[in-house]
């Protein structure tokens, strides 16, 4: 019975093993890896969906399988599937590394699945590191070696820095309470959170997750890594990686009980700085991926508002926001990948005349951008509404107003994207991005998902409510 609850993880582990084997065989067909990966990722999504109602505690109670974790596993496998679907022309990665690319993608997804289920400080740390290390190597696989290595090195250095801080926080947490199980910490932490030692420990611990979420002050890697990584991988970092970070942050923050105002205040301050820094920096970007990176930093700020509410409503909002981010950011990166067919980094100018060259892609990009800006009837609007109303429930009116002010700032650069795609004509005629039939189907599905979920989010909100009920 234990293995049934562990199926999604085992499945992805087996897939990773398969790619280890494939990487050692002689290459006959370059498309082989893509098809294998696509079918495996599709199978993974099905396995995760099938296991969504599994429940249980595994491995000496360090591993909790509940609806919350399983829902996030579905999101993660969906992210993996979508990203792999983008890899039909994996031009940003040298041919001989394709198998390794998929191997590490599967490993990273596996690690993030472990992360969302972990309820023990050590297992959280180990799975966090596993996913980070996969990503460090993945970034370095960029074909343009100088760019990739530089980004990977920067990512790695900031990563181990935040990891060290987090480890220090974990040590302090253990020193203060003598506990390592989240389930025990839930009972003890709310009573002692007002002690400076515990507070410092919690804040330092959260640092590791802030790194994953690219939240101030651990956001410095994001722009360079987005630009330096292969486009498909940047999509993965912007979507799946964020989803996992939201999940683990929710679990850990929920464990603190939400009584300590100082913790809430410091999280609120981080959220505000993150949004403001991200949005202001995004205003002046010319590179499309860099702009998306800064927009991610800002979006991380909005998610944190939902998390810091430490209420069921806030958790619902954060879960829903994670799903929204997955769809919106992925759609943006779909456009990035398709526009930069050679695997390079597109600038905003490369979008010029997109509405003529590829109306479908332009429409998808516009919907995603308006969703990121939080304009109805898109999924992004619903997500923002949930987050803001959760914060207002707790009475954080000023925070909401600051966030809304940030939304207005962000509108400007989102409008710049729309302007580039819809209003400007290219100086030199560029070839239309090639969309295969399946890519068209995927794009259409994304547009429909963004609008339909925005228009009728009820089932997903109900689902998020059920999932978050195990947190509080």
């Amino acid at each position, binding site marked *: 019975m234990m293995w049934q609850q562990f199926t999604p993880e085992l499945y992805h582990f087996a897939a990773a093993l398969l790619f280890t084997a494939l990487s050692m065989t002689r290459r006959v067909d370059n498309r082989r890896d893509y098809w294998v990966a696509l079918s495996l990722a599709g199978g993974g999504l099905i396995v995760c969906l099938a296991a969504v109602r599994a429940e249980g505690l595994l491995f000496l109670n360090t591993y909790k399988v509940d609806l919350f974790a399983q829902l996030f596993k579905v999101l993660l496998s969906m992210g993996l599937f979508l990203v792999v679907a983008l890899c039909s022309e994996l031009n940003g990665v040298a041919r001989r590394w394709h198998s390794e690319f998929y191997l590490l993608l599967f490993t990273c997804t596996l690690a993030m699945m472990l992360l969302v289920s972990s309820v023990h400080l050590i297992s959280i740390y180990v799975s966090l590191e596993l996913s980070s290390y996969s990503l460090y190597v993945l970034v370095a696989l960029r074909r343009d070696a100088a760019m990739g290595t530089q980004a990977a090195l920067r990512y790695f250095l900031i990563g181990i820095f935040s990891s060290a801080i987090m480890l220090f926080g974990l040590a302090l947490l253990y020193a203060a309470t003598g506990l390592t199980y989240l389930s025990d910490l839930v009972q003890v932490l709310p009573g002692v959170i007002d002690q400076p030692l515990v507070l410092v420990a919690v804040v330092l611990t959260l640092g590791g997750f802030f790194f994953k979420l690219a939240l101030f002050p651990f956001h410095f890697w994001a722009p360079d890594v987005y630009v330096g990584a292969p486009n498909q991988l940047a999509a993965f970092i912007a979507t799946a990686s964020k989803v996992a970070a939201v999940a683990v942050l929710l679990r850990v923050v929920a464990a603190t009980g939400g009584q300590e105002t100082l913790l809430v205040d410091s999280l609120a301050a981080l959220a505000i700085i993150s949004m403001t820094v991200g949005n202001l920096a995004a205003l002046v970007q010319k590179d499309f991926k860099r702009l998306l990176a800064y927009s991610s930093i800002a979006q991380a700020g909005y998610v944190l508002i939902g998390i810091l509410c430490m209420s069921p409503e806030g958790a619902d909002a954060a879960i829903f926001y994670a799903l929204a981010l997955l769809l919106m950011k992925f759609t943006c990166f779909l456009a990035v990948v398709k526009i930069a067919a050679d695997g390079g980094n597109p600038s905003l100018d490369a979008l010029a005349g997109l509405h003529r060259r590829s109306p479908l892609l332009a429409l998808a990009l516009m919907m995603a951008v308006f969703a990121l800006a939080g304009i109805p009837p898109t999924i992004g609007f619903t997500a923002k509404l949930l987050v803001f109303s959760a914060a207002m429930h707790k009475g954080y009116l000023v925070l909401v*107003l600051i966030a809304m002010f940030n939304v*207005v700032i962000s509108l400007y650069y989102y409008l710049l994207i729309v302007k580039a795609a819809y209003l400007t004509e290219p100086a030199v005629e560029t070839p239309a991005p090639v969309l295969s039939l399946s890519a068209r189907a995927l794009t259409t599905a994304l547009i429909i998902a963004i609008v339909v979920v925005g228009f009728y989010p*009820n089932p997903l*909100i109900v689902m998020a409510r059920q999932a978050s009920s195990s947190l509080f």
Partner: protein
Amino acid sequence: MILIWLIAIPVAGGLAAWLLDKWAPGAPRWTALVAMLLNLLIGLRLLAPAEGPWLVAIDVPWIDAFGIRFHLAIDGLSAVLITLTNGLGMIAVACSWHEIDRRRGFFFFNLLWVLAGIIGVFSALDLFLFYFFWELMMVPMFFLIAIWGHENRIYAAVKFFLFTQIGGLLMLAAIIGLYIVHGRATGIYTFDYNALLGTAMAPPTAMWLMLGFLIAFAVKLPAFPVHSWLPDAHTEAPTAGSVILAGLLLKTGAYGLLRFVIPLFPEAARTFAPFGMLLAVIAILYGALLAFSQTDLKRLVAYTSISHMGFVMLAIFAWNELALQGAVIQIVCHGISTGALFIIVGMLQERLHTRDLRRMGGLWDQMPRMGGMALLFALASLGLPGLGNFVGEFLILIGVYPVHRTLTILAALGLVAASIYSLWIVQQAFHGRARETRHRLTDLTGREGTILGALVLAIVWLGLYPQPVFTLTRPVLDRMLQTARSAPATPLKITLAPAATARAAGPVEGDWHADR
């Protein structure tokens, strides 16, 4: 069902126009015209006196998890405004028949979706749904200005979008705040308008929430300090865009004040009323003054809108029956007359390739029919008796007079200013001698004549026999006055001018401006 049709037809028509563009270049405009004609005909059925509070309503669960319902309903006021929307929508389609020569499908898609959003705004009774439509009309309008506008279009479009979004987000915050206040008080979390009416809350809370709504509507209206997007947007938009902006979008602000701000927060609105009226009077005079100093004809007409919408705001904050009736008539007539003026400017620009008043003059010789039309709508704009605007402004001034004498007199000065700038337009553009040699200009074509003729009929009819509009809207306005009055009265804290300080011993029961 009729409500669903009213919104679904433009939505579907817009999509069809966009898709048909590939097959036949003429298809989008015909699709759009047919869709709007159909909508107009369906909408005319709504112009009947109501039995209950609402003529028709549709109310189905939507997002249960959040207490959001898909609640649309129409009363006399909404019906009048929706008919205006359909009519002006059709005219907007007609006047862009030849003007739009690229990406026609997308143009008519945006045009019809703006109209769908506006109809939704006029009929939504769930605050969430209202916000939804409020935003829905914003994005297509952005594209209308940004793609088919004039020289400075992108700047104007972005400015328009950011201004309205700031207002919109503040309104969203206020909506959520109201939702939570009501939920805390009653335990029922809902966005429904009828349920939220009469929510009890502390005066400061009410004040803040009201300001959230008010700012959104004031930006749209536009009221004095937040009007600066309007001249740019109106000037740069294509003719149809200007017609919709001036004729309809501004009206959503007035409608929001009437429907939401004062009924939901009667107390706070009463406290704010003197400021509101003062801002309105400033808008009237300031708009008129700026209009007079413009040389760009389109910009001039845009500034007159600020002035005229000031009257509407003045009337709404005066909050008595006469003033409100005047406001409704003014809303409708201003939509028609300013729409017509924008259309005339568009036609002039098509012929002269300029909007500069200094390069016009003497046009009457070559285009007597257009000159006549321009004169008529200029007279309407200055409030000539016999035309609709006169009825509106007259009623507003009568209604406001007992509430505040000084402001009424100042507002009446706005009428004087209006006659100056209106006649200035005609004198500069059509009379005198031509200031440049120009080619032969064609007078109104059949299509253009029909468009303007329809508008002339409407405005003359409203000027001579406005009774149908009163009949339709009186029950609605009466009920609104009742709602706002039934709230417990607290004395007004802020008074504006010495005239208002001669206060009675205590608040008079039943009078909204109780402390005069």
